[in-house]
């Protein structure tokens, strides 16, 4: 059970082994004739300023992954996704970056700034690459958009689609793009009919459901870099750490500021969605002869996380409540089943280069008059000082045939913020006598 960190928006990273399999799926809808003309004009106007961004490994001088980039801000700067260039940021001694134009020219690239939270990166080339794109504003629902990129690493393609506003439940703003975005198009621009960039291709959920980073964040990044004279960042790792830190402060402050709805869970009243950006799902299993206990479950999570590296995702939040209740089981039998459910796993692929080991603290605590056994654990991030992964597992004790579990999983928060959110959540538990 516990932390549902799985993102519903898998990243657009090209994995060559899947290329063939995906190619076989074939079939794209045929665009209408009018859109055809606009698309043709846009393609012709922009093909010279959209590039393939390749991550090269020096061992073979072959590409390891790729994405798309486009000229922005100055004629030698490319914008792309952070997740496209993340390997080169974290291990520059292993991976280097190269641009490749539609005509096949190549050249080296250097990362000069990143916005890890919104998955953006600015790359600098050693020579001018074309005319910088203009940046547009948030498009209305239904606006026709044209997305450029290298789907699955193929030649530059233009994909028509439409904007469908910002996602309601995302922790980090994203435009819902209805159109076929595929791996390899990451970092490519989505243009309106006038050729202004309104978003950067970032993720897909399949079946013509795609996501774009709103152009305002790209604008902000370009302005920030322009303010320091387009100088490369001194220490990208420190910059990423600072951005993650600022992001979790902002996010958790927003959570604790809001008024939380409550939800009923057995004999407890507990917090529901602590932010409109959080989504809750519920399930009730009634008692059957084979499973003679009632189980009620609520699962709340932010449907989004920050890509830091292949192994590390940051900024995810989830909390769950489980209520168990039985009329027929003996206390021993009930606790046997209750104990089987008393566990929680932290969903993460981080390894020892990213994080330290968890350290846990076990205590019994009274919450709204009921006694809980509490496991609270945290592990530090090694590259980003001050950040920890935080996880909590509480189990109600002292009732013979009733049990309640509560889990809270937060990735990359400060311990202070984690504890504050835990306190705020626990303070809103209310026991109701029957």
């Amino acid at each position, binding site marked *: 059970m516990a932390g549902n960190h799985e993102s519903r928006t898998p990243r657009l990273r090209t994995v060559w082994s899947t290329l063939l399999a995906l190619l076989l799926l074939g079939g794209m809808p045929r665009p209408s004739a009018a859109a055809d003309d606009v698309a043709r004009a846009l393609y012709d106007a922009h093909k010279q300023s959209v590039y393939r961004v390749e991550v090269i490994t020096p*061992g073979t001088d072959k590409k390891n992954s790729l994405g798309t980039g486009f000229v922005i801000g100055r004629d030698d700067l490319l914008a792309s996704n952070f997740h496209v260039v993340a390997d080169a940021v974290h*291990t520059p*001694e*292993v991976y280097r970056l190269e641009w490749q134009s539609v005509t096949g020219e190549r050249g080296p690239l250097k990362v000069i700034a990143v916005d890890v939270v919104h998955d953006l990166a600015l790359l600098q080339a050693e020579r001018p690459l074309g005319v910088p794109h203009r940046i547009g504003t948030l498009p209305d629902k239904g606006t026709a958009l044209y997305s450029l990129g290298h789907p699955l690493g193929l030649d530059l393609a233009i994909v028509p689609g439409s904007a469908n506003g910002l996602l309601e439940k995302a922790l980090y703003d994203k435009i819902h793009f209805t159109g076929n975005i595929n791996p390899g198009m990451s970092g490519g621009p989505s243009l309106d009919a006038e050729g202004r960039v309104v978003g950067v291709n970032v993720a897909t959920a399949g079946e013509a459901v795609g996501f774009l980073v709103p152009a305002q964040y790209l604008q902000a990044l370009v302005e920030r870099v322009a303010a320091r004279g387009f100088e490369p960042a001194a220490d990208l790792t420190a910059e990423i750490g600072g951005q993650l830190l600022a992001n979790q402060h902002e996010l958790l402050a927003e959570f604790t500021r809001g008024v939380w709805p409550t939800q009923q869970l057995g004999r407890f009243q507990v917090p529901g969605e602590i932010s409109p950006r959080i989504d809750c799902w519920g399930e009730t299993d009634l008692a059957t*002869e*084979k*499973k*003679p206990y009632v189980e009620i479950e609520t699962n709340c999570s932010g449907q989004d996380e920050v890509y830091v590296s292949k192994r590390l995702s940051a900024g995810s939040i989830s909390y769950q409540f489980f209520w168990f209740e039985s009329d027929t*089981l*003996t*206390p*021993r*039998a*009930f*606790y*046997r*089943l*209750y*104990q089987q459910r*008393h*566990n*929680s*796993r*932290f969903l*993460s692929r981080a*390894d*020892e*280069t990213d994080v*330290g*080991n*968890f*350290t*846990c*603290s*076990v*205590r*019994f*605590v*009274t919450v709204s008059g009921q*006694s809980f*056994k*509490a*496991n609270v*654990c*945290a*592990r*530090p991030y*090694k590259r980003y000082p001050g950040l*920890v992964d935080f*996880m909590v*597992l509480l*189990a109600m*004790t002292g009732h*013979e045939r009733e*049990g309640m579990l509560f889990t809270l999983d937060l990735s990359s928060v400060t*311990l202070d913020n984690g*504890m504050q959110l*835990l*306190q705020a959540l*626990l303070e809103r538990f209310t026991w109701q006598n029957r």
Partner: protein
Amino acid sequence: MAEPLILEIISRGRGQPQYRRIEQLPFRIGRGYDNDLILADATVSAAHLQFEQDDAGTVLVRNLSNENGTRLGKRKLGPEAEPLPLSASLQIGHTVLRVLRPDTPVPPAIRPHAVPGALTLFERLPFALLLLVLLFTVNCALTFLHRIGPLTLREALFSQAPQLLAPILLALMTGFIARLLLHHWRFGLQLTIACISFIALALAQELVYRISYYSSSDVVAELSNLLLAATVFTALFAWQLRAFSNLTRRRALGVALAISWPLLALVWIQNEVRTPDFIPQPDMHLVLLASDRRAAETLDLPRFLREIRDELDEGIERELRQDRSAPADAQQPRTP
């Protein structure tokens, strides 16, 4: 020669010494067939040693062996005859000799604790069967307590019946070993030991579970588990050894200790060594019990938050310190 002397012969590989009366001196010992005492020890010379008497009547010892020689106590004897202190030990080859007076007192006889082959209560089959019934009853009762759906007595009995086979099979196996070693099945005793082992196992599990919940710590539970297992296992193993052989209680216990404790130490060390440096999941304390008895007090929310905050701060600091003390090059991937 006024009175005969007694010669004690301790040969290697033999449990008990042999005795010989020396009626007349000189008395020669060796491997050759013309000696007064013929030893089969291959490290003994053909003529190795001789006891003599001088004119004053003193008993002398003379080394005749040029090959391996003779040791009196820790000292090697020369070619001359020397006076022989009584009850001093002489070593020739692998054999140890002692010369004693016939009036040397012997320690009083000890009472045997158990005469091998005699049947005590534990060794009787009815007692073993009683234990088997007890084990079965306990298992059935637990099944009934843990029942999830409606459970009839008949179902409980039937579900636990196969469990009875385990102690019976174990007893058959150990009994067969006893049959090989002692030519005696002793099935009653084997079944008793097997049943007690299974009952001890069930009790130990319950106990360790309770200890773990009581102290909210797996470390305490693991330690008590290890000590408990070691003690019970040693006792049962010693008992089983005695059932297999004619060993005395003390020796059986010694052997059991010497085998089981180093084995447990090995298991413990292996566990320590094999624990990976990086564990992706937290090590939470997950035991929950209906009988909610515990050593830790229940805290109010502010104190709870304060205490876990302090403990986590400390733990994180420790983790980071360990990371800093780790060799720096281990952190960096190597550039090809």
